[in-house]
């Protein structure tokens, strides 16, 4: 059965000034799956995410998201695509001068012609889904880090996009909150069929939520593993992959690449 490809990346090269971050990587993300991008520190996973959401134009290569080629785009042409995606940034990236309700309402006001009343009701529903129903009129500075993330997620989901991107969602969260966020991700994916692309290196989350992963590597500047994380943990022959999934120390940074 051919599954629909919502994201296609082909021969993507990313560079920052003189340095190549990754060199000709290719992968696909299928509709409805929870896809995790992982790797050690400095492997370029956040950079990859920024490429996928259109913040950085690639040095070369092609990226198709929801059918649109975003690798060569003019300003303003991405608007349609951007309503199909939602992004949860690492710290939530809520606009500090607006309340949670105003933050979530922002994309809804801009892209729908619903009345103010309808929008308010919708916002309340979305915040309640994230257990933030009572905090609608709070400012971001008045709530905790975990709550900021949930509010950021509510905003990312405002237009019920087909693809959600998460940048290190568990960063800075206590184990309980992180587990709750994982459950929320699974619940949203099962209920709405939203495709999810998560950048993370938290093993617990990866084993709990991921359907498929790719692992980036700083030394080879490419993808060194792809597939089911549990399978990779138990059966990978690659030393770095084994170390990562089994949480083994190894002074990886200093060792030269010996096997691929």
């Amino acid at each position, binding site marked *: 059965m051919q599954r629909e490809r919502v994201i296609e990346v082909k021969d993507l090269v990313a560079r920052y000034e003189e340095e190549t971050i990754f060199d000709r990587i290719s992968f696909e993300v299928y509709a409805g799956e929870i896809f995790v991008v992982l790797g050690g520190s400095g492997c370029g996973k956040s950079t990859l995410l920024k490429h996928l959401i*259109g913040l950085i134009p690639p040095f070369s290569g092609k990226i198709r998201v929801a059918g649109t080629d975003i690798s060569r785009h003019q300003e303003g042409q991405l608007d349609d695509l*951007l309503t199909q995606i939602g992004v949860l940034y690492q710290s939530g*990236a809520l606009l500090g001068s607006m309340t949670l309700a105003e933050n979530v309402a922002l994309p809804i006001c801009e892209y729908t012609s619903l009345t103010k009343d309808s929008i308010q009701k919708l916002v309340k529903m979305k915040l309640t889904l994230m257990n933030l129903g009572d905090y609608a009129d709070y400012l971001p500075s008045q709530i905790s880090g975990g709550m900021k993330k949930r509010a950021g997620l509510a905003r990312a989901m405002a237009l019920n996009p087909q693809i959600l991107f998460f940048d290190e969602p568990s960063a800075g969260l206590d184990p309980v909150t992180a587990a709750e966020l994982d459950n929320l991700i699974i619940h949203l994916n099962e209920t709405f069929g939203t495709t999810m692309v998560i950048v993370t290196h938290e093993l617990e989350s990866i084993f709990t939520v991921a359907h498929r992963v790719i692992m980036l590597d700083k030394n080879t500047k490419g993808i060194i593993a792809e597939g089911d994380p549990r399978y990779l943990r138990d059966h990978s022959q690659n030393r770095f992959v084994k170390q990562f999934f089994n949480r083994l120390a190894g002074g990886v940074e200093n060792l030269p690449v010996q096997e691929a």
Partner: protein
Amino acid sequence: MNEPEHISRCRYQVEETKDGGLTLHLKGQISASNAAHMIKILENALTPQAGGSVVVDLSEVAHLDDYGVLVLSEIKLRALKEKADFRLQNISDKINKTLSMYDFDTLGKVDRLPGSPKRFSLFTRLGEATIRQASEVKYMVSFLGSVCFALLHVCLHPRSLRRDDMYTCMQKTGVDALPIVGLISFLMGLIMAFMSSVQLQQFGANIYVASLVSLAMTRELGPIMTAIIVAGRSGSAFAAEIGTMKISEEVDALFTMGFDPTRFLVTPKIIASVIVVPLLTIFSDLFAIMGGLIVGVFTLDLTANAYITQTLKTLDLFDVMLGFFKSAVFALLISWIGCLRGFRVRGGAASVGEATTSAVVSGIFLIVFFNSIFSVILRYWE
């Protein structure tokens, strides 16, 4: 002799061996509080001879941390410098582990402190600075373009303007600035009248103080002083606000939600400034004239009526309109450069600080520069 407590935690004894070598017995603990002192003492106490050996006996050292390792490595370097052999003896297991943790065997001379930048030649630095400046100019031109398009968009789709943001900005930039602008203008009018009266009194021409104050303020000083105050208050605020939003990824979030950060953040600020700053300028003109009036009435024997009549006689609508127009241009410049510096922030708090400072300084420069251009134009127009 009573040694201070922290020094006495480590004691040493230097023993000369028969073959011209030195054995250093250390006892106790070397830590952060006495490491520097130990290094100094041992440098003087140890005089290794070329070809001899330096042996450090650690049998009575119970515990060694990285400060201890540092002291040992200084001794080792000293020994190697004098071409003497260096050896440690009677090392406990624990100390051995510590030494290997810090890679003691390969510790050599540090030719450069980690983290200190390599010094490039003047030529290279000049080249790099030029390239940096060029990319700054490129961004400025590009941002100017974005702003022009954004303003055009608002003209064609007036409903798309974020009015609440604009009103908030008008309040902060305009209304909240009234006290300081009023005060400074009042004092300026006062001082101008006072200073000029010293000369004018000699000719019995006191009444011309009114002309001087009103003309100088409406044509030149009103617009400039008000604009400089606004640059300091609001130009910096725009840079700080947008800069902070940049580092907390709020600008990225706006982009991925499909908003144009320039239209969303910059347009309300620019329009608010252009509306409000000329009004502030008129306000400042009035306060300055009042300041002059006070001086005229209380020290120059002018009547309020005479002063005001002379002011109105001197002032042309053109003068007031000129000041109005100039301040609108200044407002445009201040808000443009303030927002630009904000968008250029990269990094953390220090970058926001730099952007804020730069917004004010650049704003003031642009004000003065454009004012000179206006003066030249007027010179040939009138």
